């Protein structure tokens, strides 16, 4: 073998090895700034046992053509609420929030009587002194946990209906860029994660795999454990026993000139996946039959596709909601509002 051939072989094998090493390093934890793992940075503030994780790119959603069309369907009260938020704490939802990450915490062993816990992390531009002053004005109490400031507020409405105190809390994570809002116990865990006292969701390969599959190309998504949620849903036993054997679910959507969405569920085994596919196929057929006489719904019904990935027992449904369908909905709404 000549020297030239040997150098070529070494170079080629070296390049392959380097590429695979970088990919492997990215797969097992990420290389910051180069090959980060799936999901937004705020997943570092989500614990590994989160039952549901959701993401929405608020800026993209607000700027989308779809949103502009939906705006026409919103009530005046909704728009007034946005105005109040802007006047009181200086947050313009249309411009100031980049994206939000939400999570619901639940232990797999939790029962329906256990309290639900969770929080929302929002990244954007926030006027921190103004928000803190607003919370104090509304009766919020300032507390400190591990040297971090957080505001706690007991909601009167919740107390009146359930008889139990339903506290909500808020804390700033990254000076004024990221704010966390949720139950005080959950926010304690957010602060714990900042001290690296607990594992983040990035260490949970099942969740990260789902996020990796649903995130690309979508500006809103949610992944979660279906079995944990159904345990906490206060459903009667008769209903729970009829629920399909689903372990994980994921949903993602891309919103711009319409809505393209995918909803996928992972069944416990191959048999359950087959049964689930048959049930969903039946519903799709029914929807198509019902929509055949209505052109505005027919396009949506025809866009629904069902797929079954037998390698991991996943059944997925994709559908498209075109802008034209929204126009039809707007027209229907106008017709209903017209005086007879």
């Amino acid at each position, binding site marked *: *073998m*000549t020297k*030239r*051939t040997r150098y*070529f*072989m070494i170079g*080629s*094998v070296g*390049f*392959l090895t380097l*590429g*695979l090493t*970088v*990919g*492997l390093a*990215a*797969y097992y934890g*990420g290389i910051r700034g180069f*090959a*980060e*793992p*799936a*999901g937004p940075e705020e997943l570092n503030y989500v614990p590994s046992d989160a039952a549901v994780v959701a993401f929405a790119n608020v800026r993209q959603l607000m700027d989308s053509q779809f949103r502009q069309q939906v705006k026409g369907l919103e009530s005046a009260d909704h728009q007034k609420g946005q105005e109040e938020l802007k006047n009181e704490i200086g947050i313009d939802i249309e411009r100031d929030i980049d994206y939000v990450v939400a999570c619901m915490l639940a232990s797999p062993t939790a029962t329906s009587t256990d309290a639900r816990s969770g929080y929302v992390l929002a990244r954007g531009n926030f006027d921190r002194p103004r928000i803190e002053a607003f919370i104090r004005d509304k009766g919020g109490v300032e507390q400190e946990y591990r040297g971090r400031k957080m505001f706690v507020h007991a909601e009167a409405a919740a107390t009146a209906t359930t008889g139990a105190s339903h506290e909500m809390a808020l804390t700033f994570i990254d000076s004024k860029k990221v704010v966390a809002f949720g139950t005080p116990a959950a926010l304690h865990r957010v602060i714990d994660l900042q001290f690296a006292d607990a594992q983040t969701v990035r260490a949970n390969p099942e969740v*990260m*795999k789902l*996020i*990796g*599959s*649903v*995130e*690309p*190309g*979508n500006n809103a998504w949610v992944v979660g454990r279906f079995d944990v949620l159904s345990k906490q849903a206060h459903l009667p036993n008769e209903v729970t026993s009829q629920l399909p054997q689903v372990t994980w679910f994921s949903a*993602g959507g*891309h919103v*711009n*000139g319409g809505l*393209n*969405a*995918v909803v996928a569920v992972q069944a416990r085994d191959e048999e359950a996946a087959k049964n689930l596919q048959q049930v969903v196929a039946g519903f799709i057929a029914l929807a198509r039959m019902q929509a055949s006489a209505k052109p505005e719904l027919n396009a949506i019904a025809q866009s629904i*596709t069902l*797929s079954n*990935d037998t*390698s*991991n027992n*996943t059944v*997925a449904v*994709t*559908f*498209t909601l075109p802008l034209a369908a929204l126009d039809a909905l707007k027209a229907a709404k106008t017709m209903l509002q017209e005086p007879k």
Partner: protein
Amino acid sequence: MAVESIPAAPPVPARATRPPSFVTAAFRVFDLSLGQMLWSRRTIFLALVVSAPVILGLIVRILTSVGIGGSVRLGGSAVVAGPSIFGLFIWLLYLRFIIPVLGVFYGTSLIADEVEDKTITYLFTRPIARGAVVVGKYLAYLAATSLVVLPSVMILYFLVVPTGGGSLAAAFPALVKDLALLGIGLAVYGSLFAWVGAQFKYPLVTGLVFAFGWEQGIMVIPGYLKRFTIAYYIQGLVPHAMPQDSALSILQLVVRDSLSVPMSLFWLGFIFVLFLALAARAVSRREYVLEQ
């Protein structure tokens, strides 16, 4: 026309030193042939073929980085999502075009080139088994093509996957599967066309007709005939190597009539062993006639 005839499998004269074993002989032929293959005119063709997807990937990267193509969609999710584009490149460019083309051009030339250059005499007069010549040259083909094709896939991965919100980390298992799939494709196509090169008078034409006539045509016709193609068995592995998102559901619809992974691997292994053995047998038994 004056011809020089080389009799089939000349008996090795008894000598004081023992002839090298089959494996040693194959390795020596590999060592000799790898350099010849890498630094031949055919390598320019190889470089052109494998650089095409890289250039396309670069274009995709530039277009997405300047914001063009962000709204191009197909099915339920964005086609511009990097892992989906990468999966399409692997299927449409590499597995359906580049791998068969390299198999045809390199595989059929393993013995045919030596015959054409009239240098086969030098190989066949050595005290080594003729089968070792085929195996050594086949291994050189596999090394030369893999060392060029697989790095180009790696470059494509880093160029395309991060676009459209794609994650290098999430797509890494798919990359590993794709690299393995391409390696299997090169091995099996190479084995088949090595036999074609050893057996047929016009191997290049025969190979091209098989790869781009028979395989492409029969794959779209329903029925059992597609079982007589390599693409059918490669296809059985593809859906599992693709990223599992909905953008590829359309592709999966096209390739849904496929075998399970173990069955596909079994048949690919069978084809590989069968045709490499047939190629070695054909070279051992055939009498090559060199035109003067």
